[in-house]
């Protein structure tokens, strides 16, 4: 199709799809009215059954823990695929250095930027870890905290440069850690299957609601998720940073 023909067809069929979808949406319950028994029941039961104040975490890591396990492996597969495509390719074709500076022209990275960067990195890690380890008490968890924490790798690269990234977040070494995080989740499932007769069923003492060591298996699973998400995103950042690597810069890069 010519671009014009495609544009016309896309506009017409997009409009048609919009109408079809809206025909269904028109029969949705009014906005702000939630009828379903599922969520209501979880809201009622989670604090009692799991001694957990955060019902979302209870769904994520217990009631629908299998979904989360699947999502963990989606992350795992996507990161593995990305690494495969980028790294193999760099090895095969682009060993020669590229001519000019990349995302971070080192000349214009002043001391002030470095200082802000370091502060930002510290705050990011602190906040991320805090969010990651308290999912059973407050909003947060391995996914949210993990993505925030991994932002430190991006900040190192942006504020300090390529070499510090390689030194403080060596992503080739975090890959096995990512796999371990993913495997950990499944192993918890297998262990609980052996101990309690159902995959991912809780078999640890629940403790008192609101305490750090409470809610049984949830903190364990959360830790696996956090490890995997941090490691996974560090790999993503590292791989893309590698793409903008130019040897000219590597020579002149200053350690912080």
């Amino acid at each position, binding site marked *: 199709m010519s671009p014009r023909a495609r544009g016309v067809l896309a506009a017409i069929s997009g409009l048609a799809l919009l109408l079809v*979808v809206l025909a269904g949406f028109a029969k949705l319950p009014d906005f702000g009215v939630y009828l379903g028994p599922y969520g209501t029941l979880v809201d009622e039961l989670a604090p009692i059954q799991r*001694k957990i104040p955060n019902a*979302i975490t209870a769904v994520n890591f217990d009631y629908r823990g299998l979904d989360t396990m699947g999502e963990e492996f989606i992350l795992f597969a996507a*990161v593995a*695929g990305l690494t495969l495509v980028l790294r193999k390719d760099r090895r095969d074709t682009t060993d020669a250095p590229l001519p000019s500076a990349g995302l971070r022209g080192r000349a214009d990275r002043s001391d002030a930027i470095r200082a802000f960067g370091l502060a930002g990195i510290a705050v990011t890690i602190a906040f991320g870890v805090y969010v990651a380890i308290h999912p059973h008490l407050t909003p947060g968890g391995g996914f949210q905290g993990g993505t925030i924490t991994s932002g430190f790798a991006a900040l190192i690269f942006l504020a300090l440069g390529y070499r510090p990234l390689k030194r403080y977040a060596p992503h080739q070494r975090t890959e096995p850690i990512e796999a371990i995080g993913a495997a950990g989740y499944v192993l918890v499932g297998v262990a609980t299957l052996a101990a309690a007769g159902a995959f991912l069923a809780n078999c640890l003492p629940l403790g008192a609601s609101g305490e750090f060591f409470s809610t049984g298996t949830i903190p364990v699973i959360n830790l696996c998720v956090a490890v995997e998400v941090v490691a996974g995103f560090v790999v993503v950042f590292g791989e893309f940073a590698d793409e903008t690597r130019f040897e000219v810069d590597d020579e002149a890069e200053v350690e912080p």
Partner: protein
Amino acid sequence: MSWLPYIVPAWIFVIGLYGMATSRHLVHLILCLSVTQSATYVLILMIGYRTGATAPVFSDVLSTVRATDPVVQAVTLTDIVVGATVTALLLAFALRIYKTYGTVDPQDLRTMQG
């Protein structure tokens, strides 16, 4: 007529599709795909929303305040992270294609015709 807010996710979904269909740059196309996906988050969270309710995080166990649906939030939460990694995977593909062909205009990439 309180279903009118649902026009928003439907619109985002379709405009994202339109952007993909008419895209002339793979990175643009991938970001449009990501916009299309975000329509599903909005839709799902709107469905679980209840007027006047709080987030389903109870500071005290015997809370009587109504809360929104935790299931939809759990579902969306993991999906966002996954969406991000898939986007990253697609960007890696686009980059690889660029390195070979020197172009990322879908119109110029027709080696698979047939």
